[in-house]
């Protein structure tokens, strides 16, 4: 049994961790992208593996992540992966400038009212969620960590593509 002092310290730290991580976890149902009121053309996501990325034009790691997502799009789109990059920019001009500069080959949408991001409660910027065919969160990544994260994403996408048991 823990001594009282250690117990209270552990309880305090545990509570703070819970407060900090109140967002979606693997297994949770991801909110409907259709009902989120996003601006832009939403691709068909029904029954497909979806990678939802929350980004902003003012976020430096988000800029670094776009080439990696472009490579994932090139390698997996034909096999059923849909990438939906949701901008949380409140300034439409900043969004437009970013998209014009990077020309992402995947779908980019705007959450101008920040309705979806508030619902999802992303823990940091950027954060991406990998959804299974049933629309549930299977994996998520906080921040962007270069090649290591791209390798992890590829492994996770392969796992989800091979899994045909979970369909909507």
């Amino acid at each position, binding site marked *: 049994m823990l001594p009282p002092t250690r117990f209270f*310290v552990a309880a*305090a730290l545990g509570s703070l961790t819970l407060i900090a991580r109140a967002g979606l976890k693997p297994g949770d149902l991801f909110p409907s992208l259709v009902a989120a009121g996003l601006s832009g053309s939403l691709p068909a996501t029904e029954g497909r593996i979806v990678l939802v990325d*929350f980004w*902003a034009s*003012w976020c430096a790691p988000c800029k670094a992540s776009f080439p990696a997502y472009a490579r994932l799009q090139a390698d997996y789109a034909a096999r059923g992966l849909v990438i939906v990059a949701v901008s*949380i920019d409140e300034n439409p001009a900043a969004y437009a400038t970013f998209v014009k500069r990077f020309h992402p080959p995947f779908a980019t949408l705007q959450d101008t009212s920040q309705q979806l991001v508030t619902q999802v*409660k992303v823990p940091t910027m950027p954060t991406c969620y990998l959804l299974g065919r049933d629309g549930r969160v299977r994996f998520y990544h906080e921040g962007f960590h270069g090649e290591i994260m791209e390798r992890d994403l590829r492994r996770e996408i392969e796992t989800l593509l091979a899994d045909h048991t979970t369909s909507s």
Partner: protein
Amino acid sequence: MSITTVRPVIALLLAALSIAVLGGCANPKLVRVKPWERAQLADYMMRPDRDPLATANAEHVYTSRESATGGREVGGSGCGCN
């Protein structure tokens, strides 16, 4: 006072401290800037080193008046995302 009588008092004090700290965190009136609300913090104008001349001047002051230099090279702005 013996150590056996002091221990429960310390434990009680730590418990009160934990409750006070957690109570403060749970206060809904506290303003928490969410990760998606940091556009203003990430703005170029929020960078302390945005003016090279002012930075060089500040460095000169630190070096010549306080014999201190360096330690100011923190990357990124205030968004906390890089």
